């Protein structure tokens, strides 16, 4: 899927093989779910050369989850952006969340996995308290907008900054506008990431109402004009500078 995943793990994860297992999982997800590989299950399914039953069992799980977020967001999240089947908007967060879960299952209490700017963490930074996750400022490259204090949660950000407007409003087919970036914090990276994509497609006004309605998840947004807003639950995640 063309992204970079970084791990912050205790040394035990290198000794017990769980880091290797998490890395193997991510490569497997890339083989099966990349829309850029013509022989991936996603590509075969997009070309209707197989049906869901002919894919890995995880495909059905991903499709069910995509349908759930699509319903939840009034169609602003879609597994077929631009009309072509491509569940990457869900798969990346899901894969990183699962990689973090593999580390937890092996007994790690404190780790952080960052997949292309979307973070799932467990525990904290050892004796140093919670993880401190900076939110990149999309309008000032290299600078942080704020810092989130994260314990056992996910931080996902959708924005246009690197590759230009790439999130389409599924209802118009046009690039979404109005937001420079939106960050969602909550328990699951799979959901936080997909919801951030949906909220970005909604634009500022609708996104604000919608993210306020999401139980257990909080949002922070930066508009194209540089204004910011946050949902009532977001304040408790902000770390003192």
């Amino acid at each position: 899927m063309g992204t970079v995943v970084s791990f912050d793990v205790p040394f035990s994860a290198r000794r017990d093989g769980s880091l290797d297992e998490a890395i193997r999982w991510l490569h497997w997800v890339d083989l099966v779910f990349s829309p850029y590989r013509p022989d991936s299950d996603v590509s075969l399914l997009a070309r209707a050369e197989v049906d869901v039953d002919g894919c890995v069992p995880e495909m059905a799980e991903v499709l069910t989850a995509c349908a759930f977020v699509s319903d939840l967001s009034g169609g602003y999240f879609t597994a077929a952006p631009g009309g072509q089947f491509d569940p990457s908007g869900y798969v990346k967060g899901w894969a990183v969340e699962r990689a973090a879960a593999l580390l937890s299952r092996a007994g790690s209490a404190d780790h952080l996995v960052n997949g292309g700017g979307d973070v799932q963490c467990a525990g904290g930074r050892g004796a140093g308290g919670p993880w401190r996750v900076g939110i990149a400022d999309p309008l000032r490259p290299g600078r942080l907008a704020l810092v989130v204090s994260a314990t056992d949660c996910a931080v996902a950000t959708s924005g246009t900054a690197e590759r230009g407007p790439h999130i389409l409003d599924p209802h118009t087919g046009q690039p979404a506008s109005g937001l420079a970036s939106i960050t969602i914090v909550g328990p699951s990276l799979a959901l936080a990431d997909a919801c951030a994509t949906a909220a970005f497609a909604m634009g500022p006004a609708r996104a604000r109402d919608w993210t306020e309605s999401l139980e257990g998840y909080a949002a922070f947004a930066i508009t194209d004009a540089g204004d910011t807003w946050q949902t009532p639950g977001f304040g408790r995640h902000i770390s003192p500078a």
Partner: protein
Amino acid sequence: MRRTILAVTATVAGLVALLSFKTHSSERTVATPQPSATLPPGEREITGNVANTAYGPVQVQVVVATSKIVRVNILEQPSSTTRDVQIGQFAFPKLVTETLSAQSARIDSVSGATYTSGGYIKSLQSALDNGA
């Protein structure tokens, strides 16, 4: 500082580049490192290998002082299209920020828009390997 270069190396060793970019032609493979200016006492430069990516070659150099990365210089980056240059202007500062913050006691990670810069990671890894 809580983290030493050992911890940074351990973190970077866990970086995975999932590279399945679309084909993107680039002929430049020869690195042209910039001449180094005189370094302050205690600092040393370690140059990474050229990493060839689908978008073109990437090469980075780290400046280390007392077992800590203090700067990252981008020696080579994809520049065959205007788009590559625009992306580089955004992506590399963010990657450098993340590299430096990875060893900061104050910031552990950065959340932001997706980047596709496997070459940066590869070249950075080789710089750390060369310096070990």
